[in-house]
């Protein structure tokens, strides 16, 4: 049955607050097993509300959702056994040590002592918190807290892991670490990971599939590459010297050129598919006495995709 292949299916999932604030608006999602799915959108788009419903914290106003074939309202307790969650805000008890936090969490799920201590040690090592493990979490930096929370979400070996804005407010170094852990999970486990983010580079770097959400609705969905490919018009940037005039006159005649722009020492050539056209552009330069010092193809990013489908900028780059 199709249900089994899908980790999450939502049908018309809707949440209204105070009768008239529509946070999530008839959301239809279908997330296959063993994928990293990113819900990308600006703050206030309905990402956290969606996660709250899927993790059984809030009941939907209407519509339904299934996690591994289990109804999120009627079978909430069974759903809870299958999922791990990290929340947008840091929800660590400041009066517990890192090790205690992990151990407590494992006990909430009924793991036995030997299982627990093995798993706790293993995860402390993964997130590089062994030295700080016996300090109270209130002494931790933001990055350490995030890493500990990630470990906490993982300790029960969930089938589906929800990460709500996992790198919000982190410095680049800690962000990269979190990304690395998520990639490690992707290669080492069969976990399905749902992450929300308002960073487009994060969605592009981690996700197999991206759903762009705006005002409670998914506006477009697909793999990051497909979404960006659909944008067409790659930009080839060339720095160099030589017979620029002759080179450009040849280039102009090619069918796939969309626009040419020269300013100061850089040429920008808009083409349909940059990676495919690059070789020919380089060949033409060589044949026409233009020597290239530096050449690059820059693709449009998910921010541009967001702009295309919503008509608005995705801020917080």
């Amino acid at each position, binding site marked *: 049955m199709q249900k089994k292949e899908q980790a999450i299916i939502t049908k018309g999932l809707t949440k209204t607050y105070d009768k008239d604030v529509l946070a999530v608006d008839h959301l239809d999602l279908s997330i296959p097993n063993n994928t990293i799915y990113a819900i990308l959108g600006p703050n206030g788009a309905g990402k956290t509300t969606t996660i709250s419903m899927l993790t059984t*914290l809030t009941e939907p106003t209407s519509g339904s959702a299934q996690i591994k074939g289990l109804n999120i309202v009627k079978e909430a307790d069974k759903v809870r056994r299958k999922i791990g969650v990290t929340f947008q805000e840091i929800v660590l008890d400041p009066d517990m040590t890192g090790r205690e936090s992990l151990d407590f969490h494992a006990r909430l799920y009924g793991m036995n002592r030997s299982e627990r201590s093995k798993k706790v040690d293993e995860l402390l090592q993964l997130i590089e918190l062994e030295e700080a493990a016996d300090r109270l979490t209130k002494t931790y930096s933001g990055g350490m807290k995030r890493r500990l929370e990630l470990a906490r979400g993982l300790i029960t070996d969930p089938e589906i892991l929800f990460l709500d804005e996992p790198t919000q407010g982190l410095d680049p170094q800690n962000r990269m670490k979190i990304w690395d852990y998520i990639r490690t999970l992707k290669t080492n486990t069969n976990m399905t990971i749902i992450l929300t983010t308002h960073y487009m580079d994060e969605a592009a770097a981690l996700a197999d599939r991206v759903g762009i959400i705006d005002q409670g609705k998914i506006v477009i969905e697909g793999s990051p590459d497909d979404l960006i490919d659909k944008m067409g018009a790659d930009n080839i940037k060339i720095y160099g010297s030589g017979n620029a005039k002759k080179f450009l006159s040849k280039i102009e005649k090619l069918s796939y050129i969309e626009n040419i722009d020269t300013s100061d020492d850089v040429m920008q050539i808009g083409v349909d598919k940059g990676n495919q056209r690059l070789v020919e552009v380089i060949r033409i330069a060589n044949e026409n006495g233009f020597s290239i010092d530096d050449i690059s193809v820059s693709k449009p990013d998910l921010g541009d995709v967001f702009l295309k489908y919503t008509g608005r900028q995705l801020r917080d780059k």
Partner: protein
Amino acid sequence: MNKTYLLWQKQIKKIRIHPEEIIGMLIQPILWVVLFGVGMRSLMSGSSTNGNDYMTFMVPGIVALTAVSGAIAGGSTWLNERLMGVVKEYLVAPISRLSILMGNASSILTKVLVQSIIIFIVGVLMGAKLGSNPLGWIGGLVLVTGYGIGFSGIALAVASSTDSSEGYHMMIFMLQLPLLFLSNSLYPLETLPMWMRIGAYINPTTYIVTGMRQISLEATPGMGIPANIPLWLSFLVLAVFSILGMWLALKAFKKAIR
């Protein structure tokens, strides 16, 4: 049950991080007995009641008051955990919602029972007369348990229905005053006007105080023990009260999750 114990243990373990809480927990009841009790005793020693009898008379009232304070502090902890989001960790876990509440209520109760015992000890040192039957002491603690669970329930219910710490304390303060003064904990019922007496009869504080006077202390017969409140009634009222408190808390709690 297992999960109730786990949550109880978490709250109790946290006390070690805050030694000021332990100190406050121990000193507060002592201050009540010594400052309030001794002051009132001097006031009463002129009247027909003997001073030491008044100390005996008021020890249960201080126990009730301490239980209410403990419940308020516990509700406050719960509110903080809710506002910080720590509660979400429990909520996404496959554990019953009732066990989350019971874990909190039982940790509050533990502290209250410890404080009650201190009050008894200090009360006796200050001249209160303890009952001779140890079973009666235990019976008194059973009454405290019912009362403590009931109030923890109310405090947790209020803490589940508000998102502001100020709002919580205002609502609780409104409850706290009549609970203490609209009862026979500080003065005998017979001296009260009718409307206050009616209030006292619907107040569970009257029942814990009356019950403890009958079994845990060597009270002068008749003093502060209304003839129409037999011992079994005290136990019944407090049993019902504890269930009611938990039910309220669970209801408010489930509503807060929606």
